[in-house]
């Protein structure tokens, strides 16, 4: 077969099985995998046929692959060194390491490449890290050409840790096969020249891959219930060996994961927009977006819930959360295009596998007795949200984690607020909702996000390689809450309709692409019609903090002034006696007092943000001023017929990025009621705690 003929044949592999509908993505890759689970030794043996298409103008002589599971093979990997064997409250087992061995790699109908495999560590100096390999090709792949590889591999699953692994007979199989990196041509994202983007697996990074087609056959013991990315095509039972092979197929995704357990309670329900979505909600969103309601039509989606049997009582909550997510993400950003969404409920003891996203498959996590508000709905909404921010808008989670986690924190918050309103703090002990019992304040997403955001410490900009943040805590804040707060501030600044249109445009333009923070900035500027460069420079690419405060307030009655005045060409002296007389006369005539009011506003933070000042007088009159916020301080002076009552900077609390909201206002009256209430409460609780 000639090289061009082979390229054509290989390219044909990339076509969808049910070809006909236009591809949603450019389908750089195609994976055909046959995998068999051996629960006795917790291994998955796989045979992978990968077809990769060179979509660049470069001639590519080397391929790079992720071997993510090798992050768990020993304590020398970068992941384990960075995490110390702990992630998200979960600890790696010291007696169950995970790894992936490439047994053989060869070009289909061609040379064996196994001996050419070498390990790379492009991100750090850790030569012991084995999560990235490079393979030199005997013949480079020409621009527009394609190559098909035949790969045999064995993946040993660790005990559940960092999203993947086994717990007893439960398997969450993620990052489990040799996965090719992303070749970025010059001009793609930040690439100046063509190069592979294939990072090591770090404790604070997730994933990045090209879109394509996955056709995966999974062979498991027949007693196991299986869930996976995509749509199940067939289930073939081998009664003699008590095994069943399930075939799953999905187009236009960039990863594939699956789960298996003999205990899963499989439940299915259809998201039916006619039933789930109220017409008023469609009309309201259509008005917000400035689009006809017909544009917001949502398709039906098959929701598959793989629940632990003892969590049966939680099924309704889980389905409802999923429906809320499908509805609001669909209305606001665009319809969910896949046929299925599978929600996996990991068992007790496997929480490390919970709260994770893969294309069309997410893991949540609930409890045997979760209490009325354990936050499990938020997990479901958040993980579904990643179908948009990560799944379809395929940003690079290694380099710009805020574009998936931060966007999703913002979007999740909006869905939660819309669907569930103010909520108890998710604090519970033995299923008892402590927040409600102790009368702790209810919260919404802004309160939660901002409470964490203010701890960001100015160490890092939001945009930074995931493994280069000051520490894991700062990675978390800069990836989740700080972006959540800054996007909310952006929404408040531009207005809800403008922000809704920006987010919609962002999704519609970049779904099934790999956009960057710069692309988002361009989208914001273009859709809003305003230059928001100053915002991005300061809060996305910079570390500066906003903090405005009321510096000082003076309110003095203007009385009769003593002194010598030139009036009509002759000197008049106002003595104290004369002043007293004038004052008494004013009092007798009930002449209203005049007050001189001077307000100084101060910018304590390094960052500049235009803010509004609202001054309220005792007679109810209000005065509003717009301050560009550039100078370190500004002074406003007035002569008014009433005393000053309050001064507020940013009275509508639009600038949530402000680090200290307590000093944004001044009230002439001391807050005796709250202070006395808190004093009494605090005194009482201390008295009760003391013996």
């Amino acid at each position, binding site marked *: 077969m000639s090289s061009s003929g082979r390229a054509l044949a290989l390219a044909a592999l990339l076509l969808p099985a049910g070809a006909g509908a236009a591809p949603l993505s450019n389908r750089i890759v195609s994976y055909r995998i046959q995998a068999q689970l051996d629960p006795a030794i917790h291994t998955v043996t796989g045979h992978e046929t990968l077809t990769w298409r060179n979509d660049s103008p470069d001639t590519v002589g080397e391929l790079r692959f992720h071997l993510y599971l090798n992050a768990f093979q020993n304590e020398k990997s970068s992941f384990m060194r960075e995490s110390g064997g702990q992630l998200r409250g979960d600890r790696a087992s010291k007696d169950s390491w995970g790894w992936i061995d490439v047994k053989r790699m060869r070009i289909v109908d061609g040379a064996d490449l196994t001996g050419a495999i070498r390990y790379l560590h492009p991100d750090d100096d850790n030569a012991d890290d084995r999560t990235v390999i490079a393979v030199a090709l005997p013949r480079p792949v020409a621009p527009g050409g394609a190559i098909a590889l035949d790969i045999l591999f064995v993946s040993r699953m660790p005990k559940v840790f960092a999203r993947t692994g086994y717990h007893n007979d439960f398997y969450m199989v993620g990052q489990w096969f040799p996965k090719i990196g992303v070749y970025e041509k010059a001009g793609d994202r930040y690439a100046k020249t063509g190069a592979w983007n294939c990072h090591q697996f770090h404790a604070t990074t997730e994933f990045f891959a090209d879109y394509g087609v996955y056709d995966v056959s999974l062979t498991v013991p027949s007693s196991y219930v299986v869930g996976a990315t995509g749509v199940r095509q067939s289930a073939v039972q081998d009664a003699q060996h008590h095994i069943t092979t399930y075939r799953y197929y999905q187009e236009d995704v960039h990863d594939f994961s699956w789960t298996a357990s003999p205990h899963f309670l499989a439940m299915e329900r259809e998201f039916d927009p006619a039933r789930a979505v109220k017409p008023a909600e469609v009309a309201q969103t259509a008005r917000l977006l400035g689009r006809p309601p017909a544009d917001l039509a949502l398709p039906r989606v098959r929701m598959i819930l793989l629940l632990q049997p003892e969590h049966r009582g939680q099924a309704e909550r889980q389905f409802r959360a999923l429906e809320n997510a499908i509805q609001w993400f669909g209305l606001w950003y665009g319809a969910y295009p896949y046929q299925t969404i599978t929600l996996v409920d990991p068992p007790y*003891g496997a929480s490390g596998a919970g709260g994770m996203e893969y294309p069309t498959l997410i893991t949540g996590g609930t409890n*045997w007795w979760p209490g009325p508000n354990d936050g499990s709905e938020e997990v479901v909404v958040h993980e579904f949200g990643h179908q948009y921010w990560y799944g379809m808008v395929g940003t690079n989670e290694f380099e710009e984690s805020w574009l998936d986690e931060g966007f999703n924190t913002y979007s999740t918050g909006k869905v939660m607020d819309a669907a569930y309103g103010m909520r108890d703090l998710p604090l519970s002990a033995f299923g008892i909702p402590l927040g409600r019992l102790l*009368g702790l304040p209810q*919260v919404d997403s802004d309160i939660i996000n901002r*409470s964490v955001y203010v701890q960001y410490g100015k160490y890092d900009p939001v945009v930074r390689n995931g493994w280069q943040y000051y520490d894991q805590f700062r990675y978390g804040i800069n990836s989740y809450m700080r972006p959540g707060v800054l996007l909310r501030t952006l929404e408040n600044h531009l207005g809800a309709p403008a922000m809704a249109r920006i987010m919609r445009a962002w999704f519609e333009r970049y779904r099934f692409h790999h956009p960057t923070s710069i692309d988002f900035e361009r989208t914001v500027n273009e859709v809003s019609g305003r230059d928001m460069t100053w915002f991005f420079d300061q809060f996305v690419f910079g570390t500066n903090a906003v903090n405005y405060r009321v510096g000082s307030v003076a309110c003095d009655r203007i009385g009769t002034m003593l002194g010598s005045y030139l009036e009509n060409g002759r000197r008049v002296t106002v003595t104290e006696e004369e002043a007293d007389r004038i004052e008494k006369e004013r009092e007798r005539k009930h002449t209203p007092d005049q007050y001189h009011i001077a307000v100084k506003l101060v910018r304590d933070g390094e960052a500049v943000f235009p803010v509004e000042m609202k001054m309220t007088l005792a007679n109810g009159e209000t005065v509003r001023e717009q301050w560009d916020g550039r100078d370190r301080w500004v002074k406003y002076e007035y002569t008014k017929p009433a005393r000053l009552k309050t001064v*507020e900077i940013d009275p509508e609390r639009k600038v949530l990025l402000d680090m200290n909201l307590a*000093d944004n206002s001044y*009230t002439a009256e001391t807050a005796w009621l709250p202070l006395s209430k*808190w004093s009494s409460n605090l005194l009482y609780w*201390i008295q009760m705690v003391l013996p």
Partner: protein
Amino acid sequence: MTIANAMREGARRLAAELWIVLLLYAVTTAFALAAAGMAIGIAAASLAHSTLAAKMAGSFDIEWVSELIAAHGGLLAAPWPAAIVAGCALFAVLYLFLLGGVVEVLGAGRRDFFAGCGKNFWRLARLSVWSGIACVLALAVAGAVGGIGRKIWGNGSEAAPLIYWGWFRLAVALGGLAVVNAAFDYAALRMAIDDSRRSLRALLGAFRLLLRRPVRTLGLYAALTLILLVPVLAGFVISRAAAQTSIAAVAVLFVVRQAAVLAKTWAWLLFFPAQAAMWKALQPAQEMAPAAAEDAIAGAEVPLPPAEDAPPAWDTEAPLP
């Protein structure tokens, strides 16, 4: 002696010394006032003239707390954790000091409260150390119970058995701590009554007593705990139900809650005379002799072993030995 009789005897004894209730209430309140005053001082500096305070009057704002922490460069860098630890240590010393007077008057039946404070302070301090070790052992037992559960069900996928077991482990931990606490009380009372310095011996003797007569001793402890819970829960329910929407409402609730605190102080002090009565009733006359003999060897003052039908040593109407 029945549990009810012990409680009745304890209440009678405490009624004769109500000033101790007032003293303990005053000390606790003074300490709480100082702590609350410092905390409210911080709040007032930030919020006294902020409109945020009015907004927070209805519902406390966790953002403000977070801002405060951030302004100090993080929770650990803030001065409050150290201040809270120092305050707790200071109160622990004060508590031990006063406890010496409590057991002296309500347990041993002597009249000089403050002499008892001074005399018993180091004895109780040593007893606290031994009790602390006993607490660690109790928690270790609970930990071992947890370990057994994990051995049996730890590799399973079902939550329910481990959750049930977790509750059981919690009960073991709380029960263990309660036993240690009861033993501490009996040991403190014994040391005061015997005027003994032997804290370890007193604690071991108290454990023996609890082991020998668990229904009477721990039953009394449980009954006293229930009584203690009454004002605590009443105060909690009233606090949750009352809306403090005006200064007058704040003042009314303040008075009601101080009554609850006073009741709680009374209920807490009731432990000592009631348990002293029970301890006394459960002591076989001959058992006092070895301890007294050892104390005599150690140079301690030797109390006379009370006769079985003699009036209790803490009965002020009876002549002191």
